[in-house]
């Protein structure tokens, strides 16, 4: 069983994703990166691109991002668009 972490992707007025995820790939300002469970705490701004989320049952979801901020801490990730 893949390890999961709590992921929240929120836009103002709308929650795009809120739940357990195995991995999320995000377009960071310094290049694309992937967050998995127990990632170290960090913060980074995001640029325009696509976010790919993989959930526990192997399903993949994609969201378009214009700009935003990703924050990871204590096994939970928050992406604010």
């Amino acid at each position, binding site marked *: 069983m893949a390890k999961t972490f709590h992921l929240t992707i929120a836009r*103002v007025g709308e929650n795009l994703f809120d739940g357990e995820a195995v991995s999320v790939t995000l377009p960071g300002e310094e290049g694309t990166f992937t967050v998995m469970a127990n990632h170290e705490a*960090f*913060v980074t*701004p995001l640029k325009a691109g696509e976010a790919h989320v993989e959930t526990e049952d192997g399903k993949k979801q994609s969201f378009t991002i214009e700009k935003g*901020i990703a924050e990871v801490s204590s096994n939970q990730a928050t992406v604010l668009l």
Partner: protein
Amino acid sequence: MALKDIKLKIQATKRMNKVTRAMEAVSAVKMRKTQNAAFEGRAYARAALAVLTRLSGTEDMKRHPLATARPGNKIGLIVMTSDKGLAGGLNSGVLKKAVQAIGSRTKEEVVVYAYGRKAQEFFHNRGFDIRSSYINKGDNVDLEAMELIAREVSEAFLAGDFDSVVAIYSDFRSTFEQVATAHTLLPLSIDAVAEIVAGIRPAKGKWSDEPILEAPTAYEVEPSGDEVLGILVPRLVAVSLYHMLLESKASEHSARMVAMKNASDKSKEVVHDLTRKFNKVRQAAITREVSEIVSGSTALSA
């Protein structure tokens, strides 16, 4: 009161009842919309402010100019009221809170950003320095508009026009309860942000679990702390303002609906009482006429 006067008054009250009932219906629709918007917005505001709180402990944050406390007594006030009245004690509550926040400061030490006509009128009439006023904005304000205001206020703060910024708005608790609330927006501090986050948390339901606020010991910040905070902090100030605005809007329409409901109920009661009075006066007039006729005919036949 003459019969005709009562009749006119009944008609006038009935007309008033029609108006208040219509306003009640309109407010009910707007209330539902704005309440939804406020609830939806809470998730985002909560997540954003939780991030800010966790970051507040870092060294970069403490050095950030928007987070640095300054000695000085000058205050910037962001006051959020509605444009229109007839909303019960909503606006007077917010304005009273604003006066409290001003405290013993002189007018020269206060700069006002008025959001809503009621706030603008109030501070204009009392001769305060109104830096900007935002009037007739409608209900569907987006985050971008709030970012503009946040930028304006942040720049004035950094330029030293005032040493702290306090936002006053009405916090939406329920349809029947709105509380005028004051929050210190700038300089950013952990306590102030935690307070706002706590305010967002409803007593029960979907978002009622305690958000994680304790910061991890070490944060990896890419590319650099200053750059991240340069993006993050203005955005979070805007998000706080946006959240306050949504709460204010939900409060306004709820308060107005309740006020209009009370007015409708009262006018119905008044119509009822007046109808009673009308009937009594009419009955008295008839009785008097009958007894006049009877006494007249007895006098003739005698």
